[in-house]
């Protein structure tokens, strides 16, 4: 166990040490004191962001606000995305009819539709959630559809021979079969939804601040140490979302799912 720990934990720790060392090198050796604010030494980042009550409080609140937006986004993206995938799985012509538009949603740069979202949904929580949904729905649709359609044809034959209805086929065969794939999509979507929330906060400035607005504010005041602290929380949120979805997925399927089958 300890050897495994050493193998898994040690290499990234060494890499982290090197990065921190490099940051100190740039901050103290390459930057003159007047320009040091461009890359503050790591202990300043930690001290100012995490050990000053007011700053920490501000950042944690913002993280929680961003988390709420991205969770709402992913839940809605899941409900809509899975529904679209189920509808598409019912007939080839429906899939052909809808798929191009799913691709269009995916490839349209999110910033290009921000003005439209603002006009339709205002500058508040709702608008931010809409951004999250748009940015994270595509992997949910495609992975769910893949799982629904990839069922062994022999199993379909068996269901046909025993006069299963369309609904039984969906509920007892296709949906359970798709669960591992749905979670592959959700894991990608979880990271994207956090990005969507932060992008949304950059542009929709009413209501709670969130990390996006905090980042913009720190940038405006050249508070690079705090900017990096906020950046840390943004990463943290992304990683936690990714890991949480992965954990739930593994818990649901560990009894039966065989990786690589």
């Amino acid at each position: 166990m300890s050897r495994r720990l050493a193998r898994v934990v040690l290499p990234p720790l060494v890499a982290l040490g090197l990065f921190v060392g490099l940051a100190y090198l740039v901050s103290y050796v390459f930057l003159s004191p007047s320009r040091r604010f461009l890359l503050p030494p790591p202990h300043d980042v930690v001290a100012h962001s995490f050990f000053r009550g007011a700053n920490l409080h501000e950042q944690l609140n913002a993280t929680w606000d961003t988390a709420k937006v991205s969770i709402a986004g992913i839940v809605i993206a899941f409900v809509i995305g899975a529904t679209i995938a189920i509808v598409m799985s019912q007939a080839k012509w429906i899939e052909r009819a809808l798929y191009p538009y799913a691709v269009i949603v995916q490839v349209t740069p999110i910033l290009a539709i921000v003005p439209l979202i603002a006009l339709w949904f205002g500058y508040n929580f709702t608008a931010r959630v809409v951004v999250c949904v748009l940015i994270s729905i595509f992997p949910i649709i495609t992975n769910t559809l893949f799982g629904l359609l990839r069922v062994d044809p022999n199993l379909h034959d068996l269901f046909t021979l025993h006069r299963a209805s369309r609904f039984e086929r969906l509920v007892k065969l296709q949906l359970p079969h798709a669960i591992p794939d749905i979670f592959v999509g959700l894991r990608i979507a979880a990271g994207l939804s956090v990005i969507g929330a932060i992008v949304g906060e950059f542009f929709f400035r009413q209501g709670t601040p969130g990390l996006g607005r905090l980042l913009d504010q720190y940038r405006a005041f050249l508070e690079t140490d705090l900017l990096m602290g906020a950046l840390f929380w943004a990463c943290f949120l992304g990683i936690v979302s990714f890991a949480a979805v992965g954990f739930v997925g593994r818990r649901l399927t560990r009894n039966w799912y065989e990786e690589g089958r």
Partner: protein
Amino acid sequence: MTAGEVIAFRSAGKVFPDGTEAVRDISFELRAGEFLSIVGPSGCGKSTLLRMASGLGPATSGEVARKVENIGSVFQDATLLPWRTVRQNVELLAELEGAAPTERARLATEAIRLVGLDGFESHHPKALSGGMRMRTSVARALTMKPPLFLLDEPFGALDEITRGTLNEELMRLFVSERFAAIFITHSIAEAVYLSSRVLVLSPRPGRIVAEIEIPFAYPRSPELRFDPEFARLSSEVSHALRETYA
């Protein structure tokens, strides 16, 4: 139709929409208590034949007359639902057919006992060996007590020892349950050991090139494989099979 007949092919043929002719002019009858094996080179349309028998892929010429609706299907893979336990898998068909939960449970318990999977009811397929998965698949088919079994190379993916054991178990089930069976296999020994009749198919389009009666009485013991008559019949099947390539 004659008495006891379960299914009959009459000059049945199948041409796929892309123009490929899979099988041609197939005629045979199968009665209750008969075990028919079909052997033939790869790609000769054996699986197509089974799909014609089950009605999943109807004949495009001639006729397939089936007297029974209730068919037990066993595929090359166990085709279990991996998220269900052994018991839930075995209950599936009764569930799809709308049987009451108590009835389902009774049928499943009986079938699980018949294939010797007692004690493994709550295992998921992931935790089972290939042979046990196949037993689960057979148990699932048994629950509906089908008068006709269609088996598509069910033991092809198993090792020789497991395969031998499952052959004997299938033989035992055949003797006790008295169904009719169409069994597809690549193994001549398996075909001769299990069958009352062996059909040899030609390469595509598959036609019947030989029909060989296997007269041994049931139940047959594994030692039958060392009987000189068994060897003679096996070589007869083997000859017919080799001639199809000539």
